[in-house]
């Protein structure tokens, strides 16, 4: 296999860090569509900057830094009146979120296992919410349940997934009767 050209190298790094960039941006902007917009803006900036600076040692750190500026710029224009977007809080969250990136790949792998451990009804809810992109309100109406109760249910599922992820990463996996 040929050694990737610098362009390919950049594309590879850019694609490899997309999930982590998205997670980072989402933790600051909260809204999934807005996070996607910022991610695209960030990609554009990275793309342009890569031409000026072809050799980047720590690509993810650089990309995170760029995305941080993009988030701030995005929210400066669109989120003046939001309490969760106040600069001092964003600064704290941006630092914490950057710290969290260290173990995110492990957590993502653990999540895949943990999804398999959900009950059928939990899986269906997660599927509707995330794979079919249904709103909690719509799911609740379909279930003839109050939206608050369904939102609580999602919270519990997420919490159990987080617990499972933590447990998975905290323990060595066993072998199957071998």
């Amino acid at each position, binding site marked *: 296999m040929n050694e*990737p050209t610098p362009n390919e190298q950049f594309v590879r790094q850019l694609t490899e860090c997309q999930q982590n960039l998205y*997670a980072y941006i*989402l933790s600051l902007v909260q809204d999934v569509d807005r996070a996607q917009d910022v991610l695209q803006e960030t990609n554009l900036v990275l793309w342009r900057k890569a031409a000026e600076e072809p050799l980047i040692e720590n690509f993810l750190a650089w990309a995170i830094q760029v995305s941080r500026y993009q988030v701030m710029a995005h929210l400066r224009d669109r989120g003046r009146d939001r309490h969760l977007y106040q600069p001092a809080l964003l600064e704290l969250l941006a630092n914490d979120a950057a710290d969290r990136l260290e173990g995110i790949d492990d957590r993502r792998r653990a*999540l895949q296992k943990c999804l398999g451990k959900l009950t059928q009804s939990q899986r269906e809810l997660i599927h509707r919410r995330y794979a079919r992109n249904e709103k909690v309100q719509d799911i609740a109406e379909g279930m003839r349940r109050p939206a608050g109760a369904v*939102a609580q249910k999602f919270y519990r599922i997420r919490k159990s997934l987080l617990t499972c992820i933590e447990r998975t990463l905290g323990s060595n996996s066993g072998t199957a009767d071998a």
Partner: protein
Amino acid sequence: MNRPARHSDDALADLMAGVLDGSLSDADEKALADQLMQSPELRQQYLAHLELHGMLRWSLLRDTRALSTRPTTAPTPTLWRLPGSRSVWYAAALLLLAVTIAAALLMTSRPPSAIHHQPSQPVALLSNTDHASWGDSTVPTALGSELSRGTLNLRSGSAQVMFSSGAVVDIIGPCTLHMVGPNEARLDHGRLAAYVPQQARGFTVNAANVSVVDLGTRFYMLAHSASLTTVGVDTGHVQLVAGDIRRTLAAGDIVAVSGESDSDRTLDVALGLANSARLLWNFDTYEATGLDIAAPAQLVRNDLLGFAPAPAGGQLADGNALRFAPEVVERQDDGAGIVACAGLLIPQAARGGSQTLLTRFFWAGYADDNPEAKMGWIINNGLRGAPGAAAGGGWLLGIRHDALSLHMTTPAGSFDSERLTLTPGRWYDVAAVFDDRGDADPANDTITLYLRPAGQQQLASHTAPRPVPAEANPSLMIGGESLGVGDKNHRKAFRGSIDYIALWDRALTESQLQSLIDARP
């Protein structure tokens, strides 16, 4: 505020729901922001939920976003993950295409059919490889290669081909894929998964005995042989064409196309097959409180049950397996063990008549090595020993003297199947199909066993010398012939792990079973 008030779980649940749905009131948002400013612990919880929300969104929301019609009028590096674990490279391919192939193929609004290609012109791009080992191929196999019409022969590993129409195909080795045109491929053998965005609607994959025309979707194909192809649809629709047969398949459909010629070709539609099982346990659930087995199953000696990782693959396999660890609690003077046999007891669940059992299990050896006890029954369908065993008879399926074995007892006598050899320390797929042909004639009943270690298959087919028991309504047991502690049938406890066990009240066909067992690409 000197000391941040701790959010109750319910309050945090409401706030997180508001954050994630954008429905947070101004007052709640302010309260949350204040708390986040002051509590590093709360910030971690908050970020953990958002991170999880993002990961779920990213990994599960695939097609709706990938199919969205955001304009692509310029080579904009808009990246979004496609279905499939390696499909971030679709985005890379978009970029590479945009830069290296004059963008026109992808970014033009011209429909694919309007693009005229000469035979030597590239029709696709090799957009990703993962541990790929290539056999004789007529096109270049270096990552990023432009592919003209020709053949890719992937021995092992996986690769991704992006057609110039925008259709993306993942292939898993061993696989032979022929690029027929900018929006058409041929699968000679092996597995592929295709993602077809709207602009490539009409993307066609031909196999030996079937063609699949995509209508904007995600589907997969497994070409087993010239006479057997499995097609499954994940999202959207495809048009399936097999000789004179045309059928539109929708998400969730799985079809096995068998036969080579028009006269013998059949479609075995396994619509929602996995969901149609009468009983299905896949043992994936793990709660902190322990085993969470859906009622009305009862656990017997659950101290000897646990979870073990299960191999991936198949429609039913996933996540955990249930581990059975029976133990000899005492050895008697004559050497016979007193065994504690663990398992599941499901009252009133045994059945007679046509039915199918499908399971994937790992056999770890016998519970008791005493020569007289060299058995480990996986399931007891109403045979003696099961509480309330019916006079109509029943059957056991499991391991007996190093072989898969079926034992059946009816009022007319007993029957033991041909034995299919097993080795401890391996996973096996096993199916038992009882077919009473839906009539009252016991002479034409059949019992068929399938045993499939990875890569090969054994088959034992019988005309049942005894009629398939017609009546049975006592308990079904999983894990042994008799659950609990004892020195007789309890010694025939199953030792190993069961990934899943499913029962249908009808006789499934071989191709239906194959589609359930086969791993998706």
